[in-house]
């Protein structure tokens, strides 16, 4: 699949184009009520309207800043906690079972409780996003650090590497492949759960755009929101893949 992708750079456009065509044909055929199956050109029109009015920008800024803040806190805390768990038997003994138990709770299942505690505003949304990012990142950091071969540390000790070099030039790169995968999964989960929190509560954000538009029966705007969410998630993950490829270019393919 990767090879086809590389050899024929535009081939991937085929399936979205086919989907768009099918959508346009179905919507314009008159077989479905226009309020329910809005034609693509109407969705595009609504999109440009939202864009020009600046409303879209507000929703985007709200969603992305919640994501950035929540993911940032969750990722940093996850890396710290995961590393501590990998290195210290005590941390593992005291926190391991609790960690692995809470990890099983879907972030969405925590939404009602978090609303009770923190209200429906940004604090609750950021905290849910933090939780969604924290666990995959912590798990990856723990496993990544634990899997560093002892041989690497032996070489480091033979050459009396200073602690700083040991951490940044040996331990971090050795754990990086696992860690980056965890970060990517964490980012993707954080994005999804953020949309869910915005659907349920609040006044601004992409999820809220969808929910408000639904209440007003503006399916065109719902579609704008849905498509944007998919597109942003795709870009986040794609960007992260590029970053991974760049950072891990030393790896044999």
């Amino acid at each position, binding site marked *: 699949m990767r090879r086809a992708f590389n050899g024929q750079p535009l081939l991937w456009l085929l399936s979205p184009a086919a989907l768009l065509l099918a959508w346009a044909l179905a919507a314009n055929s008159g077989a479905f009520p226009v309020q329910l199956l809005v034609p693509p050109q109407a969705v595009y029109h609504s999109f440009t309207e939202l864009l020009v009015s600046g409303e879209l920008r507000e929703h985007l800024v709200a969603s992305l800043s919640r994501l950035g803040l929540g993911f940032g806190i969750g990722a940093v805390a996850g890396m710290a906690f995961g590393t501590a768990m990998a290195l210290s038997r005590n941390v593992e003994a005291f926190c391991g079972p609790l960690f692995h138990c809470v990890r099983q709770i879907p972030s969405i299942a925590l939404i009602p409780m978090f609303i009770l505690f923190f209200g429906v505003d940004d604090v609750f949304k950021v905290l849910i996003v933090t939780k969604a990012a924290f666990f995959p990142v912590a798990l990856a950091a723990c496993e990544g650090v634990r899997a560093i071969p002892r041989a690497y540390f032996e070489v480091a*000790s*033979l*050459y*009396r*590497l*200073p602690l700083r070099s040991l951490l940044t030039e040996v331990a971090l790169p050795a754990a990086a492949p696992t860690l980056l995968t965890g970060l990517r999964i964490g980012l993707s989960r954080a994005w999804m759960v953020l949309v869910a929190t915005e659907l349920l509560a609040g006044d601004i954000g992409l999820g809220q755009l969808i929910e408000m538009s639904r209440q007003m029966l503006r399916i065109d705007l719902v579609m704008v929101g849905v498509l944007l969410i998919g597109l942003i998630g795709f870009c986040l993950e794609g960007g992260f893949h590029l970053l991974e490829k760049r950072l891990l270019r030393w790896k044999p393919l």
Partner: protein
Amino acid sequence: MTAIAPPIPPLALDTPGALSIRGLNKHYPIDGRRLPVLQHIDLQVQPGEFIAIVGASGCGKSTLLRLIAGLETDYEGQMQLDGKPIRGPSLDRGMVFQDHRLFPWKTVFDNIALALKHSRLDKAHVAARVNEHIALVGLQGFEHAYPHQLSGGMAQRAAIARALITQPKLLLLDEPFGALDALTRVRMQQELQRLWIQQRSTMIMVTHDVEEALYLGDRVIVLEPRPGRIRHVIEVGLAHPRERNAARLQSLRQEILGQLLSQAGH
């Protein structure tokens, strides 16, 4: 005690690299019991000497090298390098492993340069020394290659350059060519001999290849398994560089193989 024909000119008294091991015992705890791995090892290595160690697998060759390197610190007995007790790793003892142990995320240049991190040299000096050692092992043009882009022999050359760049008094080699094909191995043996004659540092090499041991070693030490003990010390007594099929090497080879095979039934 000394070689029949000293392979290298007599060394000045202050030449470093004299290793002294007395009454060395090593146990590993297995299932709550103390399993003896090395028993009563006595070995005096002269500065600049090349010692080859052969023995059945599992007889403690790697353990012995790891003890000398300071990677294992729990032992009984005395080990001294130039009169200083061995308590842990130090830059005056270098080690090359069977797997090259280069860091896969670093280029050849950076892998070798890492060995100089401790010495805090400035960048220009590091670059000069690294390039000099890259040339020494014949890896020019591969400075910026990652380990996975190298052949096994090239990776091992890089590992040797990394071990030599700190100018250790004693270089330990644990089956360094064991994973290479026969032709590459022969070439690497010649290279190592050339380096050894150039550097004059003491070298101890573990190998399972008796020919390799005889080709390179001033003395060949035959270990006996369970627990690891020194069974024989053979003075090769030929000057370097050697003729591979010299009659003396052939007869010594038969002798050593005979000793190793007689252990097998035991």
